[in-house]
């Protein structure tokens, strides 16, 4: 759920001195939250990257016995159609990372671009962009996503990610705008401006680096949010139908009555997968927060 995402960054408004790299690493590796979160996420990522190569069974092929519980041959059991749940799981992880990285990435880019521009330029540009942000922010984007996805018959997770990215940026834009507002009156920005730097140069060279920790955490939260939104869409049967994702696994388990017939191995893994990735990201984020903001470190 994206609630926390919006929450956490909201609090961190107000720039803080950027940590030096070595210092960052030192504290990061000593922060159990960051280490634990990052470990889980990286483990999942490794499984997503290597898994499909190790499992020769195509995720949708009907090769196995039907409704078989986990065994040494089928680690996560099989579906009612004789598909290998583990094969679906690793391919599903891959789709989740794709949607998260791309969807979160697109939202991040749009959010940052709108936020910087509005915050730095101010005036009419800000008014227009701010209006746009507020409009998209208030509309329940799931409504738009469902209706558009229902019409478009998405053919790839990349397309799904684009749709998600295009609708989940507003809170990020708002946050970046607020940060930029407070940074642009600082001396070093004034100096840069006086020395004749272009707007773009000032934003990318002066302002953005000073909130890099902030931008990094924003990306992590958008990443997790995009995975959850994508899972909902796939669960509704609106994702690409010829491919496997964690949400689509839940959809097919649910519609095949797996939870009534006791085939728990079919729908439990995809949920765990999502929780591990998204939960890992969030915990990692809170760890990062403590790293960047020494006041928050555990007493």
């Amino acid at each position, binding site marked *: 759920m994206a609630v926390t995402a919006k929450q956490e960054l909201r609090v961190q408004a107000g720039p803080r001195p950027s940590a030096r790299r070595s210092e960052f690493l030192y504290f990061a590796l000593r922060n159990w939250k960051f280490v634990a979160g990052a470990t889980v996420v990286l483990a999942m990522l490794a499984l997503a990257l290597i898994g499909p190569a190790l499992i020769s069974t195509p995720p*949708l*092929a*009907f090769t196995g016995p*039907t*409704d078989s519980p986990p065994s040494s041959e089928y680690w996560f059991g099989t579906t*009612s*159609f*004789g598909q290998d749940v583990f094969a679906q799981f690793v391919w599903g992880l891959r789709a989740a990372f794709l949607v998260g990285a791309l969807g979160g990435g697109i939202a991040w880019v749009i959010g940052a671009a709108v936020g910087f521009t509005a915050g730095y330029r101010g005036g009419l540009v800000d008014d227009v962009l701010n209006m746009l942000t507020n409009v998209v922010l208030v509309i329940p984007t799931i409504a738009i996503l469902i209706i558009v996805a*229902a019409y478009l*018959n998405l053919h790839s997770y990349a397309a799904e990610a684009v749709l998600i990215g295009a609708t989940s940026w507003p809170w990020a834009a708002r946050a970046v705008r607020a940060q930029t507002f407070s940074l642009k009156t600082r001396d070093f920005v004034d100096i840069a401006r006086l020395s004749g730097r272009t707007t773009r140069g000032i934003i990318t060279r002066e302002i953005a680096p000073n909130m890099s920790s902030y931008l990094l955490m924003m990306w992590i939260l958008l990443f997790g949010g995009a995975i959850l939104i994508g899972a909902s869409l796939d669960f509704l*049967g609106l994702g690409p*139908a*010829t491919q496997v994702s964690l949400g689509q696994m839940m959809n*097919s388990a*649910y*519609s*095949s*009555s797996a*939870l*009534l*017939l006791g085939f728990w191995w079919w729908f439990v893994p995809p949920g765990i997968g999502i929780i591990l990735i998204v939960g890992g990201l969030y915990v990692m984020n809170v760890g990062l927060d403590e790293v960047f903001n020494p006041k928050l470190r555990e007493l």
Partner: protein
Amino acid sequence: MLTRKRGGGAAAIAVALLVVIVASIGLSGAGASQRSAFALPRGQTLYMSGNQWSPNNDVNPAKNWDYVTGLVGFNYETAFRYDPMKGTFIPWLATSGKWTDKTTYVMNVRKNVKWTDGKTLTPADVAYSFKLAKIATHPQHPLWTDTGLQGVNAKGNQVIFKFAKSHSYQQFDYYRYMVAIVPQHVFQRWSKTELATANLNLTSGKIVGTGPYMYQSGYGASSETVTWKKNTNWWATKQLGIKVAPTYVVDISNSSNAAALGNFAAGNIDLFNNFAPKSAIRGQTKTYYSKAPWHLSANTVWLFPNTTQKPLNDAVFRRALATSIDISQILDKAYQGLAIKASPTGLLPIWNKYVDGQTVKKYGFSYSTPKAKQLLAAAGYKDTNGDGYVENKDGSAINLKIVCPNGWSDWMTAIQVIQSSAKAAGIHLTVGYPDYGTMADDRGHGRFDLLLGNDRQMSNSPWTYYQYIYQLPLSGNQTTANYERFTDNAAWKEVQQLDKTPTSDKSQYQAQLTVLQKTFLQKLPAIPLWYNGMWAMFNTKYWTNWPSSSQNKYTDVSWRNYWQMTSIDMLTHLKSAGS
């Protein structure tokens, strides 16, 4: 701390209040159109599901794709019923009917049948009901345009149907058990548009029928259940000595198979007519057959090729494709043995007696990868570029897309099997799952390569199947028949000839069917795959003596248009498990 405590308490109270208010809005909102409620006596109530179109807000008997389940069959009845297992018509609101000459059909209307408002059913009501289909937007309008029917009149105790010289038998037979007989004195207040397309929302007392059950409660936009109560004055009790066993019947319209199955597993549903996986048949659950395929066959699933484009316009290619499909793997993976392979003719098991063994032997097809390869090679489809797939005769690549609606998991599985077995024979297919609406739209407009269809249910005549395959002329949007856009004027003439042949003229009827089977198998405009089941699972906790292959051989589904076959006999034969 004090403030916080007080604040918390206030919030909790506010929340509690909110819950109550919200819940009560829920009750009053949803309950507004309902009668006062009481729990129905479980032992006297039959719960059934199978209607997946919610909500239950249509009580117009003309709209036979979305009226509330039981509206026709429970409330409104038909002149005849049809027993598909025996292949005979059962006199119902008509006591008999016959052709008195080549152009006149006479129906004798049953006497002493009362509408539930106390009035007597008259031949004029019957004539009126058949005349309703004259309205151009009425779903049964083809009765007046395609059968040669020219006039319907009540005379004495009879209803007389006048036909043109050349007229239909098969199609007219179909309407004999499909037209709901409605009370003219109630229906005459509505306009033509309303009669054909409106929901005819009425208060319960105004739904006036002749059948074994009376509407009790439940229709409305938000309703999930419709309750029917036994009509103790049903004419058949006095005249035929039969009565329906359950005092109440509740039809549940579920939004998903899974939710319905949950209720069935919990013992809340007695008659389950949704699709459920094989593993759901366990414990006290009974089905029509006690072993595979467990269910009766309700309709044929066809593979429709778009015959307007190459290579699917080539009968040899279609035959090779048909030969390449490993149907038993589909039955195994998608249905776990719940369905059976279709006859190469596509005709349902109830029409087995019409299948001409010689013709099938000579022109039929069966799964064989080598045979498929051989057919392709002989016709000049060769793999010229060595990618493992054959090319068109002119050397261009073949890549056909096979589609079925997204979410139809059994069919999605099936087309993947088709894809892989076609691959073994060297035919390149890709699969796609558009949503149903898009698929139907593309199907109608001929924008597809290959797709699955099973629109025709069992009926009184194979004519309904041949019309489905051959119907001409083609229009811009083929909404119901000839999806494959196959123009075979000679075959269509044969189909029309079949329509004009009475079933009673046995030799002529069989001869006509044999000709059509041969024509069909030679060209194979559509490929019959398997029979979709008449999905039915019975809970024996409250009701016993369900239909089965050894006794009570009746249709065992609550689906629309099956009550006027023999599903109603299922209810008259049920026994309470308590007694």
